[in-house]
């Protein structure tokens, strides 16, 4: 394999000044800080919302904090505040290293950063003020949508310029990044404008289905995998196992993923032959995903000890196990047999949490664990123990939540099918909702531990203090 295929070239040394011309690390740091801030806010919104189900919502009767609106703050805050910001930070870190060229313009990077935070903040305010749009995961008020599309186009210009200027074979990550930047702008435009202005009724349901799915499949997933293809070989210091499987994974995703959308609206008046098509395409995605997972676990072979000693690798690979689980689950739940029972139930809510937190959240947190000390100029984490707690509380909380909600979904689905009185199905759900809140609480507690660790580490970085311990399992700084 060539050097390129073996992983991104090592250009940035440990010395920060040396790496500045290629990567503006301040931008990366700012994105991570913004990302984590919205993460905490969105998680607290989710926790508060979950209390509604226990009839103990703390802000009942306050219009701006009505649970329905807070739920949208939770989902949109995570998608556009947490994930998008973290991914932009990751792209600013990885793309220049993969192309040996800096982004189009440093000033543009800062402009995009500011604009994106304004978009997220005004989305949050708009949702709480009651300006939501009736597009799930795209409730962003309609007056923000054009600005968001403009922002995405600017991101494309900034990030694709180094790719275009770069000559020579492209590493896998860049395929994902190129496609994702195109897809994200197209998806956002499709989902927010078509059903609002041009296509109504049942047909708009098909478009909204595409949007919900493409947002995960064509924005979050490809950037996430692109970053995994970058960070995993770097940290393990070995090339990805099979170039051929990388190709299968990318092209399989590119073809089958966009065809999945209608599976969100099975048994609606949308024509049945299209529903069948979406189901088949979804099952095909699971086969594609398997090739990617095989590729990554074959890469890990011989370096399995890293799961124990290297925390970022542990975050990444546990995220991949969750990814495989969630896709396998999807291949079953998408069938009409499963849909009969589980549609509309908490099963789907569990599935969504597993994808957003268990997979992409884990990858982002692993990325932050790996990069944060060096972004703040510290030689390691303040506390390895806190990082370890961060991981285990997140992982166990996630596992409990998804098992709990899956069971809740089955109970609800069969209760509805058995024509149980509606109020009684609420009674049956309550224990599951209680466990869900506690599991969510554990996940949030973990993030506060991480926040404390980050603050301490940052102050260490500023003081230039030497670090004792915390390096081994707290993210190696040995790129």
């Amino acid at each position: 394999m060539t050097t390129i295929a073996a992983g991104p070239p090592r250009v940035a040394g440990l010395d920060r000044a040396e790496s500045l011309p290629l990567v503006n690390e301040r931008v990366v740091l700012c994105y991570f800080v913004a990302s984590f801030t919205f993460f905490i806010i969105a998680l607290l919104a989710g926790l508060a919302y979950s209390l509604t189900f226990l009839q103990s919502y703390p802000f009942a009767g306050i219009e701006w904090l009505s649970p329905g609106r807070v739920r949208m703050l939770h989902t949109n805050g995570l998608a556009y505040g947490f994930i998008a910001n973290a991914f932009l930070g990751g792209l600013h870190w990885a793309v220049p290293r993969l192309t040996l060229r800096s982004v189009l313009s440093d000033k543009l990077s800062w402009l995009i950063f500011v604009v994106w935070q304004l978009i997220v903040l005004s989305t949050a305010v708009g949702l709480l003020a009651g300006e939501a749009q009736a597009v799930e995961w795209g409730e962003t008020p309609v007056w923000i949508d054009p600005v968001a599309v403009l922002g995405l186009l600017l991101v494309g210009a900034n990030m694709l310029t180094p790719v275009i200027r770069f000559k020579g074979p492209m590493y896998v990550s860049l395929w994902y990044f190129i496609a994702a930047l195109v897809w994200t702008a197209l998806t956002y435009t499709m989902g927010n404008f078509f059903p609002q202005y041009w296509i109504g009724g049942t047909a708009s349901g098909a478009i909204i289905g595409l949007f919900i799915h493409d947002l995960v499949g064509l924005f979050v997933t490809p950037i996430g995998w692109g970053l995994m293809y970058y960070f995993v070989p770097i940290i393990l210091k070995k090339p990805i196992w099979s170039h051929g499987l990388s190709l299968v994974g990318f092209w399989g995703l590119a073809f089958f993923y966009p065809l999945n959308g209608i599976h969100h609206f099975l048994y609606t008046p949308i024509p049945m032959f299209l529903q069948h098509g979406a189901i088949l395409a979804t099952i095909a995605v699971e086969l594609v995903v398997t090739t990617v997972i095989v590729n990554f676990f074959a890469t890990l072979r011989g370096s399995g000890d890293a799961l124990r000693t290297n925390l970022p690798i542990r975050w990444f690979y546990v995220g991949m196990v969750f990814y495989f689980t969630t896709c396998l689950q999807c291949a079953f739940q998408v069938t009409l047999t499963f849909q009969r029972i589980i549609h509309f139930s908490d099963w789907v809510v569990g599935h969504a949490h597993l994808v957003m937190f268990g997979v992409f959240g884990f990858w982002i947190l692993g990325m932050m664990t790996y990069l944060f000390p060096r972004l703040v100029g510290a030689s390691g984490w303040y506390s390895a123990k806190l990082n370890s707690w961060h991981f285990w509380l997140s992982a166990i909380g996630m596992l409990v939540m998804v098992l709990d909600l899956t069971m809740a979904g089955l109970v609800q689905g069969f209760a509805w099918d058995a024509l149980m009185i509606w109020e009684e199905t609420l009674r049956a759900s309550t224990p599951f909702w209680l466990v869900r809140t506690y599991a969510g609480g554990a996940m949030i507690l973990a993030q506060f531990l991480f926040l404390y660790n980050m603050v301490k580490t940052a102050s260490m970085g500023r003081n230039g203090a030497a670090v004792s311990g915390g390096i081994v399992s707290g993210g190696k700084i040995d790129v």
Partner: protein
Amino acid sequence: MFESKSGVLVIAGLAFFIFAFIVMGALPWTIYKDQPELTALELADRGLTHEFVGLAEQFPERFAEYFGDVTPGAFAEALTLGRDVYVAEACWHCHSQFVRPVAREDIRWGPVAHAREYSNELQRPVLFGTRRVGPDLSREAGRRSNDWHIAHFYDPTSVVPLSVMPRYTWFFDENRVPNKKGMAVISFVQWLGCWVDEYPYYEEGLYSNPAPMPSAGADDELAKHGDAVDEKA
């Protein structure tokens, strides 16, 4: 081609996306494009619901202040505003608006959803919903009284002790009379499904009047249902 910039950008980025959009997005649109999309006023012109008129009779002064006379124009305004409130408060995240042909849903809620029911301005974007914490609302019209909805919006547990629905106290003025938003959202919810002849009283567990399962003669059933949409209201 598979590893080149143009290949990735043009084939994966653009071509596959557009292909999927045509197959999964544009095709359903071509199938339904002959169904006229009714405006709110056209819907209102088909007749006022008893519940809308009831609000005007129960709160004549307030109603006149908010909507003026009891006309189709006022009804259209109430439906549109009610729909906006329904979206703003994310009602549709916990209440679906379609009845599936499986899981005995037609026995609980009533006739299975038909595409024609969604060909109107109030279903743009469509409010199918993806989760049911509360019951489906597409067969809700006239199921309960306006008074029930007023009490329920103010404090759901006052009428349904186990309800996890939030309180919507800002739908009311200082005398606990529904304000404009309140009247609008009640009008909207009481309109959902008013075009269907009848549906069962699921809340009492009395499923004595199930609609026929759409297995044999499904087309007839749908056609009949479609006629009902045209004639009713």
